[in-house]
């Protein structure tokens, strides 16, 4: 479980996150949705400590994540997996080395144990015979799957994904969504996903936070979203044909 309370973040006089509070539960897919530029990526990056926040608090299962030492932050980060928007695989390493990397850096396991764990994770995301390929040799969807494999290799308690479907075709998007759903339920992970893809919202949104200009405008789940009474949210979901079909 992750609790975010009244976080603020600005760059100069530009307020990117505005008193944002939210609650993300374990074993569920928690979505942050909003238009492009609404602050979704910034919200996640602040929760991971990649950008310092101006005020507010971030709590991972009763552990403060703000006023702690580098060492304590490192310990919490070992429980976090993150799938970046562009996958962020290391170009200089092949797929096996990419997925093995977090193990190599944090665990003292034998190479054969690490290889087993890597095989397991690559299998889990349905990738075979890609070990010696380099990221540039894979399609976007495969890169995304490698990124998910790398994010789960340390058995994270928390999984963050920034627009996991961006740049993917609808079929591949669904595959990725299903995968994230399965992994979340299977391991009871607290999963937080940014998206502006309404198909995903309907497919996987157990709990949903809608933000506009860095401010939380609405929260609920995939059922209540169709009957929501928020001007910005209605504007946001209006263009989505799939949702209209779903609701009517």
């Amino acid at each position: 479980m992750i609790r975010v309370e009244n976080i603020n973040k600005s760059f100069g006089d530009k307020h990117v996150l505005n008193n944002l509070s939210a609650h993300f539960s374990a074993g569920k897919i928690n979505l942050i949705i909003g238009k492009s530029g609404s602050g979704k990526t910034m919200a996640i990056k602040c929760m991971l400590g990649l950008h310092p926040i101006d005020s507010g608090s971030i709590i991972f299962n009763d552990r403060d994540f703000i006023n702690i030492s580098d060492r304590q932050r490192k310990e919490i980060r070992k429980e976090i997996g993150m799938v970046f928007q562009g996958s962020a695989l290391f170009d200089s390493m092949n797929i096996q080395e990419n997925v093995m990397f977090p193990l190599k850096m944090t665990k003292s396991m034998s190479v054969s144990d690490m290889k087993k764990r890597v095989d397991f994770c690559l299998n889990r995301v349905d990738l075979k015979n890609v070990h010696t390929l380099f990221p540039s040799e894979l399609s976007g969807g495969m890169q995304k799957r490698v990124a998910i494999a790398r994010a789960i290799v340390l058995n994270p308690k928390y999984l963050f994904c920034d627009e996991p479907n961006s740049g993917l075709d609808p079929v591949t998007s669904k595959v990725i969504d299903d995968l994230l759903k399965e992994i979340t339920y299977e391991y009871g992970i607290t999963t937080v996903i940014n998206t502006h893809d309404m198909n995903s919202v309907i497919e996987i949104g157990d709990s949903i936070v809608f933000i506009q200009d860095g401010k939380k405008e609405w929260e609920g789940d995939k059922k209540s979203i169709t009957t929501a009474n928020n001007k910005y949210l209605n504007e946001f979901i209006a263009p989505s044909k799939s949702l209209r079909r779903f609701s009517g």
Partner: protein
Amino acid sequence: MGFLATTGKYVLFLKRVFSRFEKRTVYLPKIIEEINILGISSIGFVAFVSVFVGAVVTLQVAYNMENPLLPTYLIGLASRDSIILEFSPTMISLILAGKIGSHIASSIGTMRVTEQIDALEVMGINSASYLVFPKICAAVFINPFLIILSIALGIVGGWLAGNLTGICPTEEFLIGLQYEFAPFTMFYAIIKTIIFAFIITTVCAFFGYHTKGGALEVGQASTKGVVYTSILIIIFNYLITNLLLS
């Protein structure tokens, strides 16, 4: 950003590079890899430049010593000193700033804009030390060898030029090379090289690490890194010379 702000940010960056190290076993393979990327791959280029510039230095020295009262061996001596004192340590370092400096800035810059650095941080890794420390170690270790190689080949180039043109025969050149040789000049050359290696790696890494934006900004970071590195090399060249040779 102002000069003071940038300097302050650079100092903080160095502090991060030299703190919170990862497991020691992580670094050694990375240092060896960087020695290959930064050093070994530069050997051919350094050798090529050194032979030719060494030849040119000798020809120019000879051109300036047409007075028959001056002994011919002075050509060997003057070539030796300009190669050891200035050409190899300073000019080759400037050339390496262009070659390895731009490589460092653009590869770290690319990692920044493609969120690979964020990925390292999320894994709890101190990305600054993980990425930059091995590069500093590699360059500080291998550049002195490159410079010694450059000195040797520069002198060979000078000898060849003097010999082939008949300006300075082998015996005279050898006498000149050995005449009043001060080993301290080699020490001076190596000290300069080590300081320049530190500047090249840290300044270019600094600009790469703080890239914001996309591919265009990576290119700009790389250009900036090389320009600032070159300026700093020129300034430090003066300061070190003032300190050690005057």
